[in-house]
C-alpha cells in the first residue's frame, strides 16, 4: 500500500450495516477520503458514525453483522479480504485510536511492550530496535520523560498521557490511514485542545489520511478539512469544513448549529432546539429519516427519501429542500458568524 498508488486512501460506496438482522445502523453511506486529507464524521449517538468507522477495518462482530456495499483502502477491497489479509491491514495500513485509552490498552502489559509487540507483529525487527522505535514515537507525541514512561502501565499514566500513548501505538507501523473514534471526548478541556493540535500536526507531517469521528462540531472544525454530517445511518451533508459550518444546506446541520449554547446567544433567550428524538433504526419510517423532526418537511419528504445533491462543487446535501434550508439559515444566522461568512 505505497503512497504512490493512485486513487483515494479510503473509498466507501453504498455501505450498509445491519445488526441482528433488524437494526439498520448504516444505510447507504458513500464517503471518499483523499490522501493526506482529514474528514470528520459528525453525528449524535446512534447515527452510525462509529459503526461506519469500524466497518473500514471490519471490526464489527462478524456473526451478528451483515455488511453490504464496497470499502476500498488504498485500492484494496476490504470486503474480500481473507483473515490473514485483514490481520495485515489492521494496524499496518489502517490504525485506530479509541475514545477510552484505559479500555483500549491492555492493563497487564507496559505501554512500551504493547508498542513493540505491534511493531514486531508486522515487521521483522529485533526487540532493541523496536524499543528504539517506540521511544522515538513517544518523543514524537511529546510524552515527557519518554524513556521512563515506556515502562509504565496504562493505569500509571494520566488521561492525556494515555491518549498520547495510544496515538503512539497507532502510529507504530507507519499507517497510511488513521481512524480516530471520539479521541478527545473523555478528556478535560485543556487536555483536549492539546490532543487535537497534536493530531493535526501529525496528520500534516506524516501525510496521514484521517477519519475523525466526533459529536463535537468544535473539535471537528479544529482538525478536519472536510465534514460529513450523519443522521440515522446516512450522510445528510458533506463538504469542506468551511462550507458545512458557515454555509449549511441541510436542516439537520442547521439545527445542530443553532442548538449550540454558544457565545453568540444572548442570555435569557431560549435555545433553538431540534424537537423530538432520532428514529428507531429497527423500524425506519419511509422517506427522509429526519422528516419527523424537520422544520421544513413537506409531503414528499415523508414518502420518498431524498438523494444527495451537489449544492456547490464538492458540497452535497441529502434533502429535497436545500434551497429553502439554506435561505432559512442565511436569514437567521447568528451575528457573530456574519462577518466570517463567504
Amino acid at each position, binding site marked *: 500500500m505505497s503512497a504512490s498508488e493512485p486513487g483515494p486512501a479510503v473509498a466507501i460506496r453504498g455501505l450498509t450495516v445491519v445488526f441482528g438482522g433488524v437494526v439498520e445502523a448504516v444505510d447507504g453511506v458513500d464517503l471518499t477520503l483523499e490522501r493526506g486529507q482529514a474528514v470528520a464524521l459528525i453525528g449524535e449517538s446512534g447515527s452510525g458514525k462509529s459503526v461506519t468507522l469500524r466497518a473500514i477495518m471490519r471490526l464489527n462482530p462478524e456473526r451478528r453483522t451483515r455488511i453490504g456495499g464496497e470499502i476500498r483502502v488504498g485500492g484494496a477491497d476490504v470486503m474480500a479480504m481473507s483473515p490473514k489479509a485483514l490481520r495485515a491491514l489492521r494496524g499496518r495500513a489502517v490504525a485506530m485510536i479509541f475514545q477510552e485509552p484505559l479500555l483500549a490498552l491492555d492493563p497487564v502489559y507496559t505501554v512500551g511492550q504493547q508498542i513493540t509487540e505491534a511493531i514486531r507483529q508486522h515487521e521483522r525487527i529485533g526487540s532493541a530496535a523496536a524499543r528504539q522505535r517506540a521511544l522515538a514515537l513517544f518523543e514524537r507525541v511529546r510524552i515527557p520523560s519518554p524513556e521512563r514512561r515506556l515502562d509504565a502501565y496504562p493505569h500509571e499514566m494520566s488521561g492525556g498521557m494515555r491518549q498520547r500513548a495510544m496515538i503512539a501505538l497507532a502510529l507504530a507501523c507507519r499507517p497510511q490511514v488513521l481512524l480516530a473514534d471520539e479521541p478527545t471526548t473523555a478528556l478535560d478541556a485543556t487536555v*483536549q485542545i492539546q490532543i487535537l*493540535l497534536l493530531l493535526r500536526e501529525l496528520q500534516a507531517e506524516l501525510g496521514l489520511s484521517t477519519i475523525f469521528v466526533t*459529536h463535537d462540531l468544535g473539535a471537528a472544525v479544529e482538525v478536519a478539512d472536510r465534514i460529513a454530517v450523519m443522521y440515522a445511518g446516512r450522510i445528510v451533508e458533506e463538504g469542506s469544513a468551511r462550507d458545512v459550518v458557515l454555509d449549511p444546506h441541510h436542516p439537520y446541520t442547521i439545527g445542530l448549529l443553532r442548538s449550540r449554547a454558544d457565545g453568540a446567544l444572548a442570555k435569557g433567550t431560549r435555545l433553538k432546539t431540534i424537537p423530538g428524538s432520532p428514529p428507531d433504526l429497527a423500524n425506519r419510517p419511509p422517506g427522509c429519516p429526519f422528516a419527523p423532526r424537520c422544520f421544513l418537511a413537506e409531503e414528499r419528504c415523508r414518502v420518498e427519501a431524498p438523494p444527495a445533491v451537489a449544492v456547490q462543487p464538492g458540497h452535497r446535501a441529502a434533502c429535497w429542500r436545500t434551497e429553502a434550508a439554506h435561505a432559512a439559515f442565511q436569514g437567521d444566522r447568528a451575528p457573530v458568524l456574519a462577518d466570517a461568512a463567504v
Partner: protein
Amino acid sequence: MSMPIGAPTVPIARDRGGPAQPLLTVDRLVKHFPVKTGLGGTKAVVRAVDGVDFEILKGETLGVVGESGCGKSTTARLIMGLIRHDSGDLLFDGERIGGRALPLRDFRAQAQMVFQDSYSSLNPRMTIEGSIAFGPRVHGVPKRQAIERARSLLARVGLEPARFAARYPHELSGGQRQRVNIARALALEPRLVVLDEAVSALDKSVEAQVLNLLMDLKQEFNLTYLFISHDLNVVRFICDRVAVMYLGQVVEIGPADMVLASPAHPYTAALLSSMPSMDPDARTQVAPLAGDPPNPIDPPAGCRFHPRCTLVEPVCRGTVPPLDALDARHRVACLARQPGSGHALAPDLAVAA
C-alpha cells in the same frame, strides 16, 4: 418584613432570612479522602475539597466549572450531605445543615440533586411514576396524592403521563430519562436543585431541549440552581454567576458575563481559550496549557496553578494566594491581581490619603 426586591424568589412562608440572605453558604469546606500508596501502605490523602468558600443567592444559578479532579462533584455531594465533610460549615438559609434548627431530613426536603448518569440514578425495577412519587411518600404524602403529583410533573417536563408513567427506565431514551430525574427532583418542591453535569451525557440537540426546560422550571417553581459543568458554553448560557475550581479550591468567582468575558485568573483564561474554535479560518494554533491537571494527592506548594501558569514568578511558589475581591462581586485568587503581593504584574497598593 423585608423590602421585596423585584418578585419574591421563594415562597415567603419557607423563606426565613429574606431575599438578602444567601440560600446556601459554603464556608471553608474541607474534605480529604485517605488513600494508601506504595508497598508500605504509606498514608496519603486526596485533598478533594480544600477550603472552598462561596454563597448561592436566592433565585440565582451559580455555575461551578473545572476539570476532572478539581472537586466540583465532591463539593456537590458534601452540600447534599451524601458524604460528611471534615471541617467547615454549610448554612442553608442561615441555618446550619444537620443542626437542631434544620435537621438533615428537613434540609433534604428542600434540596434535591440531578446526576449525570440518567440511567444509574433511577431504580431499574420501579416505574418512573413510582420513582417520582417515592420521595414525597417517604416524607409522608399519601399515596394517591403523590402519584397524582408525579403525573402532573411528568406532563410538565414533557412526558405525556398516559404514555410514560408506567414505563421502566430502560424503556426511555437518555433525554427522556433525564427529564424523569428532573421531575423526581422537583417532586418535593425543593428550593435548591444541584445539577451535577446533568446535561453532559446528552446529545447536543437533546441537551438544548433540557436546558430550555431547566430555565422554564426555574422560573415556574422559584428554584435556585447549583449548576456543575465542564462546558463553558452551557455555563455562560444558563448561569448568573460562576465559580471556577482548580485542585479543590475556588480560584475565581463572579458574574458569569464578567468572568467568562474578561477572566481575571490565568486558569480561567486558559480554560476559555481551550474551547475549540467554531471558525474554520481561525483555528487554535497553540494549546493554552501544557500537561494534565496535577494530582490532588500532592498539590503544588504556593499557588496550586503555578506549575502550569504563564504568569508564574518566584513569589507564586511560596505564597498561597487568597481569594481577594477585585470589586464588589468578582473575587480572584491570583498574586498577579493582588496589590502588594510582590508579583511584578500586581497592581499598586492603594495609598491612603
